[in-house]
């Protein structure tokens, strides 16, 4: 695709330079980990800073993203969906067309290259639904690195197909039996592995959470999504969108598409959280909508927690959004008012899933279906000349069993 710089902006860009040198986004972020991990984080911060400033690193990453991942991903004008909604024009950023079927590989590719620069032959990862685990196993295979993926036993049972994919790719999947046996516990266990094997091991965190520099680094690697949109939208639609929508679990696909748009004040940023069975039921994963600030997994951010500050189990039909925390930069964007956050229930996400299948011939991931569902609410309230850009962060092939089950079928 021909990349060119957009010529006109509705309003002039506003400088944005987060996080600060110590990894803080206002009161959020930081390095809340035990002393035993501090040296490893310092080593990583130094290595990543060097990579960030190194044109050779950036060139290698760009080459891999083009030839291995298949970037740039297209932006697609969903005309039939837009017509059916009868309001704003809906555009989809097609991250579902990437190798491995989601945005996750943008980050694992970047971190794998950092790991190689650091001379670490072994990579580890945590995974919930298995998408990040598959993306980590993929790049580990690509570079001949040992790969160990931690996954809660609950998720191993629910996501057998992704477990098998990781094994095909040569990774070892370690079932985690502690705590609630889901994503947050897999992350705890990966941290424990890292602190024990730090000399030869690189920890590929899958979202914009964790201690500094992870929230920044994972954001930077996913920001290719928004950077492409900045060029693609004027080329395709004649201007930048009025709204950018993305689903938020940990928040990596949302940070990826939001970040390049933060300095553009005419573009409204909306994160869509997993409302599960409804906020009122308590059975959801809408951390920014219904949680409160605290410290977990190395950073200060919004959390789902009880009256004693213990972390709560969350619920979402989409395993990729089923996390009780959220990236600290989202917490900052919420408090500062630069982005707003809404939630969509399981049922609304499922309805959007079916609608997109039917109107556009695109089967979205259940995670991405949350963003589509909010677009379906929003678009009819806007004029036909308005533009809503949705980050279609992944494809839904992995969700066939879940969707069939929700429809009362078994495959």
């Amino acid at each position: 695709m021909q990349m060119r710089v957009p010529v006109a902006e509705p309003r002039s860009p506003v400088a944005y330079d987060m996080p600060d040198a110590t990894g803080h986004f206002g009161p959020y972020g930081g390095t809340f980990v035990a002393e035993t991990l501090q040296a490893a984080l310092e080593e990583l911060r130094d290595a990543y800073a060097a990579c960030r400033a190194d044109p050779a690193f950036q060139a290698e990453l760009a080459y891999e993203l083009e030839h291995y991942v298949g970037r740039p991903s297209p932006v697609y004008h969903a005309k039939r969906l837009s017509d059916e909604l009868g309001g704003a024009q809906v555009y989809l950023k097609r991250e579902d067309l990437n190798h491995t079927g989601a945005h996750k590989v943008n980050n694992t590719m970047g971190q794998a290259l950092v790991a190689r620069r650091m001379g670490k032959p072994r990579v580890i990862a945590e995974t919930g639904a298995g998408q990040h685990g598959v993306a980590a196993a993929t790049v580990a295979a690509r570079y001949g690195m040992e790969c160990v993926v931690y996954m809660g036993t609950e998720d191993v049972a629910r996501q057998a197909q992704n477990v098998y994919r990781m094994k095909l790719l040569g990774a070892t999947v370690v079932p985690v039996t502690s705590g609630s046996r889901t994503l947050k516990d897999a992350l705890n266990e990966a941290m424990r592995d890292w602190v024990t094997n730090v000399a030869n091991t690189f920890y590929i965190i899958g979202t914009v959470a964790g201690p500094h520099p992870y929230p920044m680094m994972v954001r930077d690697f996913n920001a290719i999504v928004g950077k492409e949109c900045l060029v693609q939208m004027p080329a395709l639609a004649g201007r930048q969108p009025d709204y950018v929508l993305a689903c938020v679990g940990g928040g990596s696909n949302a940070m990826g598409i939001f970040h390049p748009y933060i300095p553009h004040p005419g573009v409204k940023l909306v994160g869509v959280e997993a409302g599960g069975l409804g906020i009122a039921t308590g059975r959801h994963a809408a951390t920014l909508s219904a949680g409160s600030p605290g410290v977990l997994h190395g950073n200060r951010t919004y959390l789902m927690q009880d009256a004693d500050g213990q972390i709560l189990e969350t619920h979402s039909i989409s395993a990729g959004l089923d996390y009780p925390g959220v990236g600290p930069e989202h917490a900052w964007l919420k408090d500062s008012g630069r982005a707003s956050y809404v939630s969509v229930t399981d049922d609304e996400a499922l309805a959007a899933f079916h609608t997109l299948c039917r109107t556009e011939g695109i089967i979205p991931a259940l995670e991405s279906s949350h963003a589509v569902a909010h677009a379906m609410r929003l678009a009819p309230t806007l004029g036909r000349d308005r533009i809503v850009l949705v980050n279609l962060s992944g494809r839904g092939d992995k969700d066939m069993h879940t969707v069939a089950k929700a429809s009362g079928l078994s495959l």
Partner: protein
Amino acid sequence: MSRIAATFDRLRAVRRAALVPFVTAGDPSPAHIPGMLRSLVANGADVIELGVPFSDPMADGPTIQRASERALRAGTGLAMILDAVKQYRREDDNTPIVLMGYANPIEHMGVAAFAGRAKESGVDGVLVVDYPPEESGAWVEALGAAGIDPIFLLSPTSSQARIDLVARLAKGYIYYVSLKGVTGAANIDTADVERMLARIRGRTSVPVGVGFGIRDPETARAIARFADAVVIGSRIVEEIERAEPDQAAQRAGAVLATFRAGVDAAVGDRASR
């Protein structure tokens, strides 16, 4: 003088290292907290580290993770632990009690509110595993205002700059984590530990305790030759896990007594410092 400083002064005079057991508060249940403290003190504890259970104990190995899960299942919470310490203080006003845990339960209570309540309950020091010195400004200030010692960790990978950072903030004692990894991991190299302690002592006069990986009385004796305190955690928690709930305090005390014998035996080996 604080209970922690008084304890280290007393032990320095008799050239003995402090014996510091760690147990998770509320394991096996909150009702067992006072009995557990009583048994540990009766069996040779000089300072007690009382773990505050957390749902996501990232720095702990399987033994202490399971202890946290048992305590949480039994309904243990931070406010309840502070109340139990307050109750215990009526019968023992001498043994220092240090709370050890993760940031979130404390932040949820509010750092200043926690510090006030901890002081009122008779808590002497607090170690928050995921509050490294660079994130501890408000924390150290709140504890200082309440007269509670902030305890910090150092590890084999701590740089000179980080040792200095901790030395500037730490009061009470410094907890040296003697190996890479999580609590309850493999055995330690005492010679490595001794070299690192010498480096730390070059920068601070605060006592230095050693923990992680001290699994038998012989290792405790070897460490007690040069450390100011010896922390025994997972080995005691294992004993609690294996015991019937009503036997847990007695069995924890019995195993602690064997470590006390190790620490006592080191007195003769110990150079005057």
